[in-house]
């Protein structure tokens, strides 16, 4: 059976050479880097090397600006809460974009319960933030600006360097969540004007169990996991040495392989999207067109009149692994807040599928996915009362309106008795 992995946003396989690098740190060099004996010092050296590799990967000035955490979520929590708490006396106001990852959004919400206020700068229908929207949201009490480099759902690349200049002018620390870009776009913390940057190597063929937070001296930060004096006092807890070592090498490899990876995925991205567009009516791409405003790995699709989970399951049965921002797929039964924030029609959000490419995908795979997906869409539409109602003129298409019938959303609201959310 053909198997195509198109969910690289959720996971990437560990590179064999990274695994080899990690191996000695499980059974042989098992020491704790806090220990002052041979076993501790040996792994301390290994961690230092990893830190230097990660620093080089993002053009940090010094490896002392690199802190290891357990994942991208913890890094985001540390960036948001760590800066907020450290600057509590200066002010309790934050500025974020409206489409940040839940690890940022929910950290902000948590702080709001503790007395902070937060401006959520809106984005345009492609998910693009206007830098001025950030400038306008800043108040004298603002202690942090947080904008992700690339959106995890729709692949939009944000104008980070411009926002970085605004942040520098206003003297507000600037945090850039690079989880969805690291390994797939060059990251230069200095060119970005970022004071804090986070990402996780599991997004680019490194191990799970390690996250990175870059922080330069212009941003004060306190720790959020309290305990021992690991990571320069910024992150307590026994270090996950094998993962840190592996993360370091994965970063080094990512820097080297980046041009090849980007070229390859950009090619596949276009082939896949062109193919789908040609074969499937009433399908659209959310976020910018493939090109300079969209990361090369992401296709966020809405296929009208059918729901996302069914598409996902059917694709999986056919060997194709994808994700979805549909409410049926989420554990909270809500559509992705990103799709809501870009103002995507509820019907289109329900029919959402996210395909994310990796370095090992092939052109043949793309062609297989196009054919397979086209068949699935046909089958699911045949099952869908909405397709029938569209064909009979009761409801209209959002993607290519015919001018007949009411909107899916109105129709759904009228039969469910409540507006769709």
């Amino acid at each position, binding site marked *: 059976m053909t198997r195509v992995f198109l969910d690289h946003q959720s996971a990437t396989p560990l590179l064999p050479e990274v695994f080899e690098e990690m191996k000695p740190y499980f059974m042989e060099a098992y020491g704790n880097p806090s220990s002052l004996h041979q076993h501790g010092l040996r792994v301390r050296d290994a961690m230092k090397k990893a830190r230097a590799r990660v620093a080089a990967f993002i053009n940090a000035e010094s490896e002392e600006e690199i802190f290891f955490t357990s994942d991208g979520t913890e890094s985001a929590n540390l960036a948001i809460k760590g800066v907020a708490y450290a600057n509590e006396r200066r002010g309790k106001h934050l500025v974020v974009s409206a489409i940040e990852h839940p690890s940022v959004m929910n950290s902000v919400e948590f702080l709001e319960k503790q007395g902070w206020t937060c401006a959520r700068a809106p984005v345009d229908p492609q998910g693009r933030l206007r830098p001025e929207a950030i400038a306008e949201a800043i108040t004298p009490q603002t202690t942090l600006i947080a904008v992700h480099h690339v959106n995890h759902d729709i692949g939009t690349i944000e104008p980070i360097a411009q926002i970085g200049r605004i942040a520098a002018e206003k003297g507000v620390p600037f945090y850039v969540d690079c989880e969805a870009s690291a390994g797939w776009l060059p990251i230069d913390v200095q060119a970005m004007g970022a004071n804090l940057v986070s990402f996780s190597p599991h997004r680019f063929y490194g191990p799970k169990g390690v996250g990175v937070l870059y922080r330069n001296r212009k941003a004060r930060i306190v720790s959020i996991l309290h305990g021992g004096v690991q990571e320069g006092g910024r992150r307590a807890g026994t270090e996950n040495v094998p993962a840190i070592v592996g993360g370091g090498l994965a970063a080094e490899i990512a820097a080297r392989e980046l041009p090849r990876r980007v070229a390859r995925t950009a090619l596949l991205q276009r082939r896949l999207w062109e193919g789908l567009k040609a074969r499937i009516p009433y399908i659209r791409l959310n976020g910018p067109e493939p090109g300079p405003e969209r990361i090369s790995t992401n296709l966020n699709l809405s296929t009208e009149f059918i*729901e996302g989970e069914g598409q996902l399951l059917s694709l999986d*049965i056919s060997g194709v692994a994808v994700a979805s921002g*549909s409410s*049926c797929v989420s554990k909270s039964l809500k559509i992705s807040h990103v799709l809501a924030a870009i103002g995507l029609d509820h019907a289109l959000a329900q029919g959402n599928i996210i395909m994310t490419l990796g370095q090992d995908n092939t052109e043949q795979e793309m062609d297989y996915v196009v054919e397979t997906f086209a068949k699935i869409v046909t089958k699911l539409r*045949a099952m869908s*009362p909405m397709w029938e109602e569209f064909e009979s003129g009761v409801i209209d298409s959002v993607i290519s309106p015919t001018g007949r019938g009411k909107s899916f959303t109105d129709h759904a609201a009228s*039969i*469910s008795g409540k507006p769709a959310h």
Partner: protein
Amino acid sequence: MSETYTLYNETVMDHFLNPRNMGDIKDADGVGEVGAAACGDIMKISLKIREGRIEDARFKTFGCGSAIASSSMATELIKGRTVQEAMGFTNQEVVTALGGLPPVKIHCSVLAEEALKAALEDYIKRHPEAAGKPDATIPA
């Protein structure tokens, strides 16, 4: 990977992949279409009723795997029942027959119950004489 892993159990997957009674009934005697406010799923059930008994039931569903499986299973279960019997149908029958649903997906079975009830109500509206007379013989 040699084994196959599934989100739902085998019965649910089977009803999702090979739905029974999918489609519409021409000249249906009752049609119900309902939507779940929770997640936006939409389900439509059409019934063919003869002599107070459900002779045929068909569904169309816009929704997740468990919504499709629930409607497939619901239509299977109610075929052959009297209108009166069908009025007592609950989502629990669907859940049991499917061998269980994840907690977060129980509402899909509720939707199936609601679609069926809506179709029965539609039938009764069109055939008010049926309401009072259990097992009454009503010409189709």
